Each structure stands twice: as C-alpha cells, then as structure tokens.
C-alpha cells in the first residue's frame, strides 16, 4: 500500500481506515488446497459454488414443470417424470440451496464480522461442507436409477414401501440425513463461534444483525433438523425393517408423519428467511447511509420469531381431522408471529426514511426482497385463518404464497448478499449494469410468474398436478406464469454471467468499496488467510463507521485528502 498517491485526484475522497498487512500471501494454491482446506473462507466459497450449481439445477427442474403446465393437456412430461421433478425441485431448493447458502455466506463473513481468526472448529467445518456435498450427490445420483417421487414433504403412506417401492425414497432419506448432519454440526460451530470468539467490546448489543440472524438460524437448525433426522429414520425403519410407525393398519398413524415433518418444516421456513432478514439489516443501513432503525427491536424480533416459529407447525395441515380448539390455537400462534415480522418491515422502512439511498444492485435486491416478502406475509394472514385456509390449502395460492416468502426473502436476500459481499470474497466488483439488468428481470419475472398463481389457486387449481383440462379455464393463467418463469430464468442467467465475467475481469474492489459498517471491511479483499493483523476494539454496532470518524479526527481537516494509512490501536 503506497502513500505516494497523487493527492489532487483524491481530493474528494474521505480517508478510509486500513491496516498494514504483515503477511499478505494468499496461502497455498491448487486443487489440493481446496480439498484439504480448513480455512473458513475457502470452505465458504466451496459452499457457495455448490449452492450455485444446485440452484441452477433446481431452476431447470422448475422450468421443465412450467413448460409442462404452460398449456392445458400437455404431454411433454409423463406423470412419473413430473412427480420426480416436483420432488427434486422442492428438495433441492430447500435442502441444497436456501439452507446451505446461508452456511456458505456465514462461513465466509461470520469470523470476519466478529473479528475472529476462523470459526471455532475449523475441521468440523470442513466436514460439514463435505457432508452437504455428498448429501446432494446422493440425491442426484438417484437420477441414474429411480428418483424419489413422493414430494419434498414425502407424506406417508405415499412414501411408504407399498406406494413408493423404488429406492429413490431411500436416496431422499440419506440426503436428508447427510445434509441434516452437515447443518447441525455447522450450526453448533456457528453457535460456539458467535458465543466465544467475538472481538473485544462486541457485546450482544453490538453484534451485527446478520450475525444475530445466523445465531438464531443455528439454534433453530439444531432443534428442527435433529427432529427431522429422527423422523426420516422412522420412515427408513418403516420401509426396510418392518416397523409400523406410520402404518394405520398396524396401529401406526399417517398423521404422525405430518406433525413431525412440519415440526421441522415450519422452523425451516424461518431458517431460510432469518439470515435473509439479517442481510437486509446489514445492506440497508450501508446504502441509506444511516444507522439501522431500532436495532434492539430487530434483534429481539428475530429471537421472538424463532420461538414462535416452533409453535405454528399445524397451520400446514388445517384440513386434516382436527378439533376446533387446536385449529384455533395454531391460527392465533400464526397471527402472533406476524407481529414481530411486521415490526422488522417497519424498521427497515424506518432505516430508509430520511436516508440518502444509493441504488446499488445489492440494495435493490434487498428492498425488492422486503417488498416481495411483505406481500407473502399478507397472503399468509389469509392462510392462517383456518376456515379460509380450507379453500386455499394445497392450491396454487399456497404455491404463490410460499414463493413470495421463500423466494422473496431467501432468494432475493441471497442475490443481495452476493452483490454485497462478492467484492470482499473475490477482491473484484460485480458489474453494476449487468447486476441491475438481472435485478429488473428477476423482479419482473418473479411477479409475473407468481402473482397470477394466487388467482389460479382461488379458481380451484390444486398443487402438484401434472396436467389440467382446457375446460378448467386455467390455461391463460398458467401461460402467463410460464412466461414469467422464463423472464426470471433469464434474470438469473444474467447474474450468473456477471459472476463468471467479474470474477476475472471485474474492477478491483479494495478493502472497503461500499464504505460499510462492519468489521469484514476492515481487511483486504480477499482477506489474507489469518484475516486480521490487528482487531480494533468494537465500540458500537458500526465499528467501521467509528474507525472512519477516528481517522478523520486524527488526520485532521488539513489532511482530509491524504490517502489513508492509519494504524488503529486495539
């Protein structure tokens, strides 16, 4: 880092804190360094590339389904192939994309955000990644034999040996076991890291909100995925070892599966979205140039949502035989969870209010994510009212609703996080023009695809059907939806191209391209293997803003234009 830069060209640049790197080598290179690495940054990058591949695969599966449904009485796909695709799409997106994508981002940025050298258990961390990869390979290896076709929710009795005789269901079970173990072990790692390895001065009230989101995500994973591991083991035993947990003719219960599955399944929803909420809470203040509005309310509502999220599972099954008092309980608990979620949205609006909002791609994805998730939240209220849900459940209305929430928060959040942290990870900027083009296509494509699906559901179109007759009148709605999905796919493709081009040819990012608030920007991009030479004492939730202010004060007004090379004391 030179201090001889031309002062005149830098007149308008505010000084930025940077530290001297004693050891700036990027560590070992070559493919063996990836296979054997325990560095959280390399593991994070491997996670993200694996997620990217599965995201594209899941997207292709969705596109095939939309092609099939684009016109009535279509014969493009056989019912068998359609059910395989719908199972693979759901399973891939849930278990292989939106859960591990946050493990990927967190791996990379969590130790940097809290000023740590690495995660608490680096080798366990590597093991988590490999379990995830092998879990995904197990599922996709079934493509060579007989893929599962009982849906990502694998309701019994359809998923039992009698009705799904092929071993695709076993592949699904092993995939859940491997990725579940990966997530549980990874989460324990994150919990240990967050509790023990924060920088000096980083109390709970100064923890970045993304880290708050990831802490709660981790606790939820430990609870929910352990439960799911037990549940799918019961299915494995039923299918192969003669137990009858779920067989009603032998004293078992088919409803038991639904309760156990959704006891995992609803916390899972918050596992997907809480980290995305964390991303929104990081990105908005940076580009609005304003502190987060209501830090405590956002952190507290995250914890509140997690607790309540464990108490709402039966709202997925309002149409099963249930007494009214149980229905009423789950309706009210679902209502209550809407309150902390609403509070978050209010706080994000408060963060933008009176700010100076810079339209960077990361911000656009985050704001669009909030808007889309908010619409999904509103349709969620209809679904929570159980008499209304009796009309809506298992229709395209639900498909639309959960894509608004899951795609709205998790996928938009994922793109926001990519555009925000890519410069840190690669040292290069993603193209803003390609990024904005991708944003417009994804946003428009998404709403064209899914808004109309509410109407399809209301007019009686059930989920998971491989064809429909033209007399149903659903043809036009489905055609619109399929066209939308094509726009969405092109939008994703533009981002993929942007990623591939910018990783080699993007503009150099420098340590802190966004003038951001958190500690990951207090090191080079990409960071050296040991992350930091010196870790500053944290005095607020925005340590980088404090450091910038400190540099300004120390350098004084006379030297405002001088390129910065400030060593900040710990």
């Amino acid at each position: 880092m030179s201090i001889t830069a031309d002062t005149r060209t830098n007149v308008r640049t505010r000084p930025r804190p940077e530290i001297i790197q004693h050891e700036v080598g990027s560590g070992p290179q070559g493919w063996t360094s990836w296979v054997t690495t325990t560095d959280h940054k390399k593991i994070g990058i491997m996670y993200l590339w694996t997620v990217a591949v599965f995201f594209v695969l899941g997207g292709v599966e969705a596109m095939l389904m939309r092609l099939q449904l684009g016109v009535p009485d279509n014969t493009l796909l056989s019912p068998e192939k359609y059910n395989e695709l719908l199972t693979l799409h759901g399973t891939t997106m849930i278990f292989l994309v939106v859960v591990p994508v946050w493990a990927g981002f967190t791996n990379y940025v969590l130790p940097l955000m809290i000023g740590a050298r690495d995660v608490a258990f680096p080798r366990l961390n590597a093991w988590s990644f490999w379990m995830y990869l092998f879990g995904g390979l197990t599922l996709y290896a079934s493509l060579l034999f007989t893929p599962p076709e009982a849906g990502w929710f694998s309701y019994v009795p359809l998923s039992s040996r009698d009705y799904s005789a092929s071993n695709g269901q076993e592949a699904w079970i092993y995939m859940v076991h491997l990725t579940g173990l990966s997530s549980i072990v990874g989460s324990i790692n994150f919990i240990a890291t967050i509790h023990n390895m924060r920088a000096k001065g980083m109390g709970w009230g100064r923890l970045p909100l993304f880290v708050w989101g990831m802490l709660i995500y981790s606790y939820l994973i430990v609870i929910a995925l352990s439960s799911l591991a037990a549940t799918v083991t019961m299915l494995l035993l039923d299918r192969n070892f003669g137990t009858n947990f779920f067989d009603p003719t032998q004293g078992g219960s088919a409803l038991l599966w639904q309760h156990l599955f959704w006891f995992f399944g609803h916390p899972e929803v918050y596992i997907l979205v809480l980290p995305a909420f964390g991303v929104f809470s990081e990105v908005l203040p940076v580009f609005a140039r304003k502190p987060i509005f209501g830090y405590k309310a956002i952190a507290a509502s995250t914890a509140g949502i997690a607790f309540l999220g464990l108490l709402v599972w039966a709202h997925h099954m309002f149409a099963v035989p249930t007494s009214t008092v149980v229905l009423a309980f789950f309706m009210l608990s679902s209502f209550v969870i809407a309150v902390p979620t609403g509070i978050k949205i209010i706080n994000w609006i408060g963060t933008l209010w009176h700010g100076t909002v810079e339209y960077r791609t990361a911000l656009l994805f985050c704001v669009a994510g909030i808007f889309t998730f908010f619409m999904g939240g509103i349709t969620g209220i209809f679904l929570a009212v159980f008499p209304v849900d009796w009309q809506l459940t298992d229709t395209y209305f639900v498909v639309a609703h959960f894509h608004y929430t899951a795609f709205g928060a998790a996928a938009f959040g994922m793109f926001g996080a990519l555009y925000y942290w890519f410069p840190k990870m690669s040292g290069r900027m993603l193209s803003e023009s390609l990024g904005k083009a991708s944003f417009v296509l994804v946003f428009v494509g998404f709403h064209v695809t899914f808004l109309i699906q509410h109407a399809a559901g209301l007019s009686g179109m059930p989920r998971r059907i491989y064809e429909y007759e033209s007399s149903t009148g659903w043809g036009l709605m489905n055609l619109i939806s399929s066209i939308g999905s094509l726009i969405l796919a092109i939008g994703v493709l533009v981002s993929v191209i942007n990623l591939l081009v910018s990783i080699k040819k993007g503009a150099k990012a420098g340590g802190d391209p966004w003038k951001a608030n958190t500690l990951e920007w207090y090191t080079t991009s990409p960071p050296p293997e040991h992350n930091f030479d010196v870790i500053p004492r944290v005095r607020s939730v925005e340590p980088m803003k404090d450091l910038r202010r400190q540099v300004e004060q120390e350098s004084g007004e006379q030297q405002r234009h001088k390129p910065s090379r400030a060593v900040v004391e710990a």
Partner: protein
Amino acid sequence: MTLPAALLTPLLTGTPAFAGLLSPETGGSPNADKISTLWWLIFSMALVVFFVVGGALIYAVTKFRAGNGRVARQIHGNTRFEIGCTIGAACILVFITVVTFITLPGIKNPERTSNDGLSLASGTLFASTDQPQPPGGKALRVKVNGQQYVWRFQYPGAQKVYSYVQMVVPANTTVVLDITSDDVNHSWWIPKLGGKMDAIPGYTNHSWFKAREGVYNGQCAELCGRNHANMLAQVRVLPPDQFEQWYANQAKRLQQAKAGQAAARPRYEDQ
C-alpha cells in the same frame, strides 16, 4: 389499469363478482359463500395494510434517493413508534380473529335441510359424530372414500347404493360427508361447495354442503401418486324427486350387476 378498479368494485358493491380470481369460489353452498364473506373482510384489511406499508416502503426508497447534497439523518430508532406499530398490528389481528369466530359456526356446522329438500326421517340417516348434527337432525350422509385415483361414494340405506367419480345428491338438502381413504392421503374438494378436507387412512374426516341444483366440479387436492391430476370429482345436484329416481335406478343397476357377476362366477371357477 383496470386492476385497482377490479380490486375495489367488490368491496364497494359487496358482490362476489371476482370469485375465483380475487376470492374463493362461491355460489354452490352456504359454507363456501360464508368463507368468501370472511375472505373479503380480511381482504379489506389486507388492502389497507398493503397500500400503507407497501406505499411507505416505495416512498422511502424513491423519495430519499441519494443526491442534491442531502445528508442522511442519523436516527437510531423510536421506541414509541415501534410500540405504536405493534399495537396497530395487534388490533388488526384481533379484528380478524373476532370476525373469524363469528363466521366460523356458519362454515363448520351443517345447516338445516330446507323445506323443499329431500324429506328425510329425523335422525335415521345420521349417526353420532364430533361434527355437530344439523338442526332438525335431517341430513343425507354420504361416505366419501378416496382411492388411487378415484372417489367412491357410499349412500345410506339397506340397498348399499354407491357410485364412483360422480356424487348425485338432492338439492337444498344438507349432505354430510364422512371422508376416509383406503390407501394414501387424498383431499376432498369441490371449490363451490366449501373448503377441502383431507382423506387420511385410519381417520374419518367430516364436511358438509347444501347445494343448489347444478353440476359442481372438483378434484383431489393432496398429492396421491402419479395420476393425482386425474382424480376428478363431480357433484350433480338434482331436485329431490329426481334424486330418488336416480337412487332407485342405481340400486337396480347395482343389483343387476351383482346378479350378472354371480352368474358369471362359476364359469371362471370352472376354468
């Protein structure tokens, strides 16, 4: 844009003009109509929330865009505002809860059979159940059984009349359904005749409707295997006298089929 107009018209006129596009299907049975009423009440609240909060978000992003040397106001929060919003949200939810429980009995509990409905003897066709009995105790009880990939309807009476795919029922008569499954999970749903109820092996689920004359279509709503999409259901609602005719006819046809079967059996057994 016609969309705002389309959104507002039903609210102003109160007519279900957009059933199936903006609200659940109506016009078959009172429970479906009442679900739709409840839908519109929630919809009106949702619309207000959508425009206020969504509008605030869009306003915040567009109005406070960086430029013109404006400086961001460094506000950290406002506890009173947060508490106010929490209370506001809670009030909306309390309102929805109240209207839900006011309308619930009309949706869940079977109605009284109309005077022009089928004349049924009191109680005879109705066994005890955890679903409340219709007032007067007069109802036609049909056992709905889901099977991969067809619906079977079992009627009451000594003749053991049954049918597949199409359920024939008398108009203006309360029809109570006992919903079961023989194999995997299914879900009974005729959109115009009310909400869906899952058919789960080992359990009996309940629903009801009281329909006007006509033909109502629906299909299985829970993934039940490869031909889930082809598991169609139809309810044909006839005037009571025509229903009785159909019932007698169906009994006779089943009797004949049974006799034919019995006659044919020895031939197969000999082979």
